């Protein structure tokens, strides 16, 4: 039987996480001993965890890995919130799988002497939009006037404007039969929203920022990469994700140093190492929109913006 290989960096991902492929390749180039566990493979893997010592042995196909107190870092790419609501009853085995394996993975937080990118507990809190806005304002970011409400009679039109940016409080991904529904940010007349049906769930209403240039600021520790999101060299009204990807350009954007420092400070303040921050530049002001503690970065990783390589070095250098 193959000997157990000690692991310095543990990668917890899923099979479709292609950006994490890049990190693994970079770790391999750095000569780091690492193990990647994919959520889908766990049913075929064998694990033995002693939480007291602590010591974890993992067998996957012909690989045998040992994780103990010498573990230096963890790349955590597991769902913090499972947003894919089942549209049909789950079998007993499916229920067991969906409850116990995520709990096992969360339980690996017992390796708390390792550096976590990101710490799942910090990610849980940082995913909350209301908390994000409060922290960003507290640190000195410009933030859009906001009201979260299910009250059709709330004074939104008088405080935020007749037309508002309507968002969900958390990602909306609904499913009925073979159809699914995803809610993007919409610029709407509040009178459309202020129907009795609003009582069913709160929405996040914000003062419209227009015109604007969307910025994505990717932060890893003290590293900052900023791009603007443009169509034909101009900013985009409303939610840029509604545009076809072929239309979009992501040129580098030179953030003022004080704004970059604020982004670094926000990520750190939230207990994170990594964060993908959405800003809007409007009328010379940088306005905080939200932070995605688990936001995707693969679409921005280029030789000029070596995000994967920098993440790998951050994991290796712990």
């Amino acid at each position, binding site marked *: 039987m193959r000997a157990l290989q000690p692991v310095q960096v543990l*990668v917890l*991902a*899923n*099979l*479709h*996480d*292609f*950006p994490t*492929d*890049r990190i*693994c*390749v970079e*770790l*391999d180039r750095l000569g780091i001993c*690492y*193990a990647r566990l994919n959520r889908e493979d766990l049913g075929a893997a064998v694990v033995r965890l002693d939480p007291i010592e602590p010591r974890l042995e993992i067998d*996957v*196909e*012909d*690989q045998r890995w040992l994780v103990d107190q010498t573990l230096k870092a963890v790349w*955590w*790419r597991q*769902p*913090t*919130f499972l*947003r894919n609501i089942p549209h049909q009853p789950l079998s007993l085995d499916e229920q067991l799988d969906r409850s116990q394996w995520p709990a096992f993975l969360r339980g690996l937080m017992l390796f708390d002497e390792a550096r976590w990118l990101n710490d799942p507990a910090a990610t849980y809190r940082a*995913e909350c939009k209301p908390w994000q806005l409060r922290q960003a304002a507290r640190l000195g970011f410009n933030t859009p006037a906001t009201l979260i409400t299910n009250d059709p009679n709330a004074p939104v039109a008088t405080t935020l404007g007749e037309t508002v940016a*309507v968002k*969900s409080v958390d*990602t*909306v*991904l*609904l*499913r009925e039969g073979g*159809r*699914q*529904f*995803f*809610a*993007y940010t*919409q610029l*709407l007349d509040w009178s*459309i*929203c202020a*129907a009795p*049906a*609003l009582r069913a*769930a709160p*929405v996040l209403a914000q003062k419209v920022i227009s015109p604007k240039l969307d910025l994505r600021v990717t932060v890893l520790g003290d590293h900052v990469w900023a791009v603007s999101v443009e169509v034909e060299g101009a900013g985009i009204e409303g939610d840029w*994700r*509604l545009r076809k*990807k072929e239309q*979009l350009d992501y040129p580098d954007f030179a953030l003022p140093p004080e704004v970059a420092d604020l982004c670094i400070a926000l990520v750190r303040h939230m207990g994170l190492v990594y964060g993908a921050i959405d800003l809007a530049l409007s009328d010379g002001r940088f306005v905080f929109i939200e932070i995605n503690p*688990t*936001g*995707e*970065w*693969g*679409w921005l*990783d280029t030789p000029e913006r070596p995000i994967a390589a920098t993440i790998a070095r951050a994991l290796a250098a712990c």
Partner: protein
Amino acid sequence: MHVLRGFALESVARDETPLPDGAHYDVALGAWKGKNGLLAYDAMTGTVTKKNDYETGEDQKGQ
């Protein structure tokens, strides 16, 4: 109808996210390999784009 439902974008739901054709996952490396090398660096696969019809990150927002 609630505004978040009324203005949500409808699409066809997928029960399973397909795995790459003609490629295999290298357990030791922790990466997919295709005929032309690593899939993660193959621009033709579109595997690392933001709008890949599903997000590949841990947030799994589905869009």
